[in-house]
Every structure is written in structure tokens, then in C-alpha cells.
């Protein structure tokens, strides 16, 4: 079997850690090889070595059997290795053509020849089914389209080996489907793909083989077809992973949150949420399922108080909180795990202990006579860190920026659940996390429910909704399509409802 690229016995050390320890990865021509590992397992380091961002301490890289030295990304490009980064590298106010040709522009005289470049991009786009308009501005196109622009960037440079770094983290379920199709198309045209991911479902869907690494070490390279998802997960995490959560039957109590005919305007004044009625009772988890951008944001922001509701009522334990500020709602028992943890959940350059008191800093025991009590703050942090298993190098004093994504999320979850809220609103609580952290957060949410609290879960991951909710409310175009019991429904039915097709509501 011919390998297009081989990384043999790669070792890379950073001060204090061995990021890659004797890892071997071999990519065959025309295959999709998945690189599976938890956050921090060494996937990114390994790929950065292949892309020339780092030099390995030992080990060799071979391209079609010939040893090569990749000293920087330009060399990688010249060798036909391209990378779609997790955070897109696109200039927002440039056209798609300008973004693609940047760095390898062709010119006529002194003038950059955008016209013939656009023609070539159109051809490539048609050949690979990418459906990209070269004249559109990047700022005006969807995230899925931006990713396709990144793919085109590599194709435009005649890349043969394409590396995708967590490509689905930012996509909607539909866009993920689309991407899978594109990946298969790339293989069909003779390209070879390395897919970095920690999502087993995607590996099962497209990959031929899978290389699993854990804590910088190679575990194995296996055929995807003959290996079960459970087995892959076990190899990745290093222990058995329970996919089935342990959900005891529970009878919900009285209503904690009642939304009554709630209407909220979205950005630009368009109706975001229309006459939405729903209740969340204590001892249950209600999941909101829907395609991104169908009113979830407006719903969440109206309930927590970040956005003004136009009409309708928001009742928390029977009292209307519609006109209360955020702090007032928190004081009455609401808590909130936001989807964008960097923007709304944390102050990245603050220490862990400060982040843990963002909502309570003004209250005793953290604040006395207007001065912060650092001893109390530290005690509180140490306790929460212990209880929620937040792993930080320097403990309570660590800046949150230095924490891994999973531990940042645990910090937020710890802060919110520790407040012992009657209603916990969790928006995409496991976005971008690895299997171990997802399992942990799901367990915590279920614990809230079992303790007789109410949880409102908003997620774009249908699996997640189906797995841990008691009831599922499906939202489409700002309207409630229907409410179904999780135990009595499946992915197909909810998926269909997400497109707006109604079904007799059960409640």
C-alpha cells in the first residue's frame, strides 16, 4: 500500500510536557484518515508539525516515500499539504476571490488579476460541489460557506493532502452533512484527507481508518468499519465510556418557569420569537431542539434578561420577572450556562477565583463593607474547584485563559450549579468538549433534575437533547412546533419537526 505521507516516530517536547511521544501516522492515497483524541492529547501539535509550524525533536516525515523537512507553512504548501484551521483565517472585508488568492496572486502587469482567478475558483467550486460565489464578501456569507472558502484556498494551491482541524465544531447539523458530502467528493477526485476530531459519529460516517492518540502517545490505528464506536471511545479516553446516561424515571413537580405567549424581536427588529408558550417544571429537563437561528437566542436572552421581551409573560415560580434586570432574576433563582463561554461566560484574563464570584462578588461573604474579602473568595474557589474537578495548573490563582476548554466550561458549570438555582438554563453546554467532559456535564445536569430542580437545555446537538431531556420542545422560525416526550420519540421525528412539520402535541 502506497502512503502519500508518513510521520514516523515523531517526538516533540515542550518545556515540562511531552506533547508527542513516538507517534507514527500514515496516510494512504485517496483515504480519509481520522485523528482521534481528547482535547490536549497532542493532535494539534502533531498536525502543526506536519504543517511546518513546529519542528519535531526526533522522527521523520516522508512524502511519497521520500524524506522531507517541513520548516514552515510555505514549504508545506509547496509540498501540497493544506490545512483548514479551526478558526478560519479569512479577511472579513475582502471578497472570496481576494481571500483565496492572497499570497499567491497572479498579476497582469502590476494589477492583480482577480478576473481569471475568479474564473478558476468558479470551476473548482463546480467540480467539488462547493457552491461558492467568488464575488461575495466573506463578511456576508455563512460560516459553512466560509469553511468552503478555506477548502477552496487549498484546492486553488493544488494541495493533495488536506488537513481538517475540528471542522464541524462551528457548523450546524445541516452544514455538517454538507461537509461530509464534500469530503467524499475530495476523495473521489483523488485527494487524501486527515480529519482531526473527537466526534465519533463523524468518524463513523466518513473515515476509512482512524488513528487514536491519548496523552501524546499512539494507541492504535484501526479500520473504522470493523471497530465499534464504544471501542473507539474507550481507546480515546482510556476507560469505558457510558454512552447511555443513567436516567431514573421521575415525576415532575410544580412549574418553575412558565412562558406565556412570549414574543421577542431579534436583531434588526424582525420577529425572533413568536407567541411562545412553554413550561419547565421542577425535576425535569426540557430540551429545546431546532436548527441554529430559529429563535433559540431570542428565547434564552429574553428569559435571562439580556433582551427585552415585547409581549407575553415570563413567570418564575409564579412571579412575573419580565421587567426585572438580570441580577434580579439571578437573585430569584435563575442560573445560566451560555453557549459562547469566552464572550459571555468568563473573563479570560481574570483568575479562576474571580471568575467564580462574578455574580456574587457584591454579597457577603465575598464583599464586606464594600471591600473584597480575598480569604473568603479563595476558600470558595478551592471548594468549587474540588467539587467540580476543575483542573488548573496554579489552582485558584490561574488565569482562566490558560485552562483547557473543558476546564473553562467546568468553571462555568461549577459557578452556576453551586449557586443552587431553581432554574438552570444551559445553552450548548458541551460545545467543543471531549467525550469525558461531555459525560461529566451531562451527569451534572441530570443531578440537578434529580435534586428536584428545573433545567432548560438548548442545544444544536440533537443526540444530546434526546439523551438527557425529559420533554423536547421543537422550535422552528421562532414558533413552537410541538412538545414531545423524549422516551416516546426518536431522531427522525424530532428532525422532521425541526423543519416545521407539526405533530399532535403531547404534554
Amino acid at each position, binding site marked *: 500500500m502506497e502512503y502519500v505521507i508518513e510521520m514516523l516516530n515523531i517526538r516533540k517536547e515542550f518545556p515540562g510536557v511531552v506533547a508527542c511521544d513516538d507517534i507514527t501516522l500514515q496516510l494512504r492515497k485517496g483515504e480519509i484518515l481520522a485523528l482521534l483524541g481528547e482535547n490536549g492529547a497532542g493532535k494539534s501539535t502533531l498536525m502543526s508539525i506536519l504543517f511546518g509550524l513546529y519542528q519535531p525533536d526526533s522522527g521523520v516525515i516522508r512524502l511519497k516515500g521520500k524524506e522531507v523537512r517541513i520548516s514552515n*507553512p*510555505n514549504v508545506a*504548501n509547496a509540498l501540497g499539504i493544506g490545512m483548514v*484551521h479551526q*478558526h478560519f*483565517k*479569512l*479577511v*472579513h*472585508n*475582502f471578497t472570496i476571490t*481576494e*481571500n483565496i*488568492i*492572497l*499570497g*499567491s*496572486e497572479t*498579476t497582469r502587469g*502590476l*494589477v*492583480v488579476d482577480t478576473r481569471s482567478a475568479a474564473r478558476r475558483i468558479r470551476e473548482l467550486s463546480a467540480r467539488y460541489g462547493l457552491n461558492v460565489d467568488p464575488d461575495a464578501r466573506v463578511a456576508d456569507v455563512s460560516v459553512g460557506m466560509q469553511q468552503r472558502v478555506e477548502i477552496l*484556498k487549498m484546492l486553488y494551491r493544488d494541495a493533495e493532502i488536506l488537513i481538517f482541524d475540528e471542522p464541524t465544531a462551528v457548523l450546524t447539523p445541516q452544514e455538517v452533512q454538507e461537509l461530509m458530502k464534500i469530503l467524499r467528493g475530495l476523495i473521489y477526485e483523488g485527494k487524501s484527507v486527515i480529519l482531526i476530531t473527537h466526534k465519533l459519529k463523524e468518524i463513523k460516517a466518513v473515515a476509512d481508518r482512524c488513528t487514536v492518540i491519548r496523552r501524546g502517545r499512539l494507541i492504535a490505528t484501526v479500520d473504522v468499519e470493523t471497530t465499534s464506536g464504544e471501542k473507539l471511545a474507550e481507546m480515546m479516553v482510556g476507560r469505558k465510556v457510558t454512552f447511555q446516561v443513567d436516567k431514573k424515571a421521575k415525576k415532575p413537580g410544580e412549574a418553575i418557569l412558565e412562558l406565556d405567549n412570549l414574543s421577542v424581536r431579534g436583531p434588526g427588529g424582525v420577529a425572533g420569537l413568536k407567541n411562545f408558550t412553554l413550561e419547565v417544571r421542577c425535576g425535569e429537563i426540557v430540551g429545546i431542539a431546532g436548527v441554529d437561528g430559529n429563535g433559540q437566542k431570542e428565547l434564552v436572552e429574553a428569559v435571562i434578561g439580556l433582551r427585552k421581551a415585547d409581549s407575553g409573560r415570563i413567570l418564575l415560580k409564579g412571579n412575573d420577572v419580565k421587567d426585572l434586570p438580570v441580577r434580579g432574576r439571578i437573585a430569584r433563582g435563575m442560573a445560566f450556562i451560555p453557549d459562547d463561554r469566552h464572550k459571555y461566560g468568563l473573563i479570560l484574563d481574570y483568575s479562576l477565583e474571580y471568575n467564580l464570584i462574578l455574580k456574587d462578588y457584591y454579597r457577603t461573604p465575598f464583599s464586606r463593607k464594600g471591600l473584597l474579602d480575598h480569604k473568603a473568595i479563595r476558600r470558595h474557589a478551592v471548594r468549587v474547584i474540588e467539587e467540580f474537578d476543575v483542573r488548573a495548573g496554579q489552582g485558584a490563582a490561574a488565569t482562566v485563559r490558560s485552562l483547557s476548554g473543558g476546564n473553562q466550561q467546568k468553571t462555568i458549570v461549577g459557578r452556576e450549579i453551586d449557586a443552587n438555582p431553581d432554574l438552570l438554563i444551559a445553552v450548548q453546554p458541551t460545545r467543543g468538549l471531549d467525550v469525558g467532559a461531555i459525560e461529566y456535564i451531562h451527569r451534572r445536569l441530570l443531578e440537578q433534575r434529580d435534586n428536584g430542580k428545573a433545567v432548560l437545555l438548548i442545544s444544536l446537538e440533537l443526540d444530546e437533547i434526546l439523551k438527557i431531556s425529559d420533554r423536547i420542545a421543537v422550535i422552528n422560525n421562532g414558533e413552537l412546533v410541538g412538545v414531545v416526550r423524549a422516551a416516546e420519540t426518536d431522531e427522525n421525528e424530532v428532525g422532521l419537526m425541526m423543519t416545521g412539520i407539526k405533530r399532535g402535541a403531547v404534554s
Partner: protein
Amino acid sequence: MWSLITQIFPYAVAFTIPLLITSLGGLFSERSGIVNIGLEGLMIIGMFTGALTISVLEIAMPGAAIWVGLLAAFIAGALFAMLHAFACITLNANQVISGIAVNMVAGALTTYLARNITGSGNILIIHGLVRKDVPVLSALPVIGRLVFTQTYATTWLVLFLVVLSTFTLYKTKFGLRLRACGEHPHAADSAGINVHLVRYLAVMISGAFAGLGGATVIVTYSGEFNGTAAGLGFLALAALIFGQWKPLGILGATFFFGFASTVANVSQAIPALAKISGIYLKTFPYIVTLIALVLSSKSSQAPKALGEPYDKGKR
């Protein structure tokens, strides 16, 4: 009214041109992602170098001395701007503080040198540029009288540079790369562009243009170096923001400043304007700018990565 406008116009243009070229220099720097509030200091460097060169050479080679002086100012500005580039790009220093340092060093250093050379701190040139009518075009109705009569050659040089800069920024490879560095340096870097080199060049162009702007003041309406650019560099910076970091916007903004300031300056000599208290006329352009900046702040077109040192590791 017409005669009033034709009287004011040549002065307004003369005042506009140094602002325009300095602001255009700032455009290069800022579109590449480097804040350059050192424009004031760079103008002073240009003024000093221009005045000194001309005063030394004008006896030996009258006429040509002015152009040699302008060229010297252009080069001196570019070299001095490397200080700013070194601090901001190589050392990742705070760009505002580096700019302030450039302003302070430029003013102090040139005054010190001028005192040692002339004894007074001022450098006088005997002959400036002579205003000329553009042949044929000055005979055109309206336009001919306003634009093509009594003009300085530097005006045409600067306008040519505006056209050339616009072309460079929007049509050439270098321009595309420069703008990419100001918006998303990581994108540029991953496309194989040397962000540091592009930014160095951009800052040097800004220094060269600001130096030329300073020397233009000397050879047109001032005729004397006296250790200060009288805030023109800061005005150019304001025009850059007012003009939303676009060449045509800058042209409009600097002409507005130039015209309004000239009106304020000559108001006491003109009966129709003498009735208005000078303070209103003098503050008028600044107040309009403040209002314009407030109104346009929501849709600001500032380069996204402006003021951020480029750090490869940060994502």
C-alpha cells in the same frame, strides 16, 4: 462671494496639501495594522531636513535645491519612521506610546540640532516654490480659475501620489497584502506573507509621506523651520479617521479642514466674515469632526487588527 472664494481657494489648497500627503502616509501605516500617532514628529523631521538641505544648497544650485530638499525630507522621514517600526513590529511595543515617543524625540532633536547649526533654533530658506498657472487648463471657466491658477508644483506631485497610492492599495499585490495584514495578520501569515516585512514597509512609507508633507509646508507657505508642526500631524491623523481610512475620504476630509481653517485664518480681513467671532470659525472644523466621528463610530471602517502587535502564537 465668487471673488471671496477665488481669493481663499489657493490658500486653502496650499494648506490642504501637506495635510493630505501626511494623512495618506498614515493610511499606509494604519491599513497595515500599525497606529501611527508619530505623524506630527515625522512632519517635523521632514521640515527640519527640508529646510536645512535647502538653506545649505540654495546658493549653489537655486531652483534644484528645493527638489533636493523635498527628496531629503522624504528619505529622512522614512528612516526616522523605522524607529517606530522597530519598536512596534520587532519589539511588540505599545504603538501609541511609541508614537508619542517619536513626537517628543523629533521635536527635541531637531530643535537641538537647529540651535547648534544656526544659533537661533530656526532655519530660514530664502526662496520657496513659486506659484504658477497651469498652461491651457487655467483658461477653463470656473475650474481654471479655482484649481489651475496660482498653483504650487508640490500640489500636483501630491495629487499624483494620491492617485498612485490608491492604485497601489486597491489594485496591486502589495496593496492586497498590506490590507490583509491590517485586517487579519494571521490569515496573511498562513498565506505565506511576511507580516513583519509588509508592516515595516508600510510604516516607512508613512514616514516618507509625512516627511514630504513637512517639507512641503516649508517650501510653500511657511519658509522657515521653527521646531514645530503646529499640530498638523495630529490634524492629519484626525482626517484619516474622519475619512474612514480611505484615500478619497482622506482627500475630502483634508480639504474640508484646509478650507475651514483658511476661512478662520483670513476671516478678520474679510468684512462679511469679520462679524462672526473668530472663536466660532476657528473651532468649527474640530467640532464638525467630533460630531462626524460620533455619528460614524457605529459603522467605523477601522482596520480590524489596528494597534495589535502581531503575535504568531496567539489565536
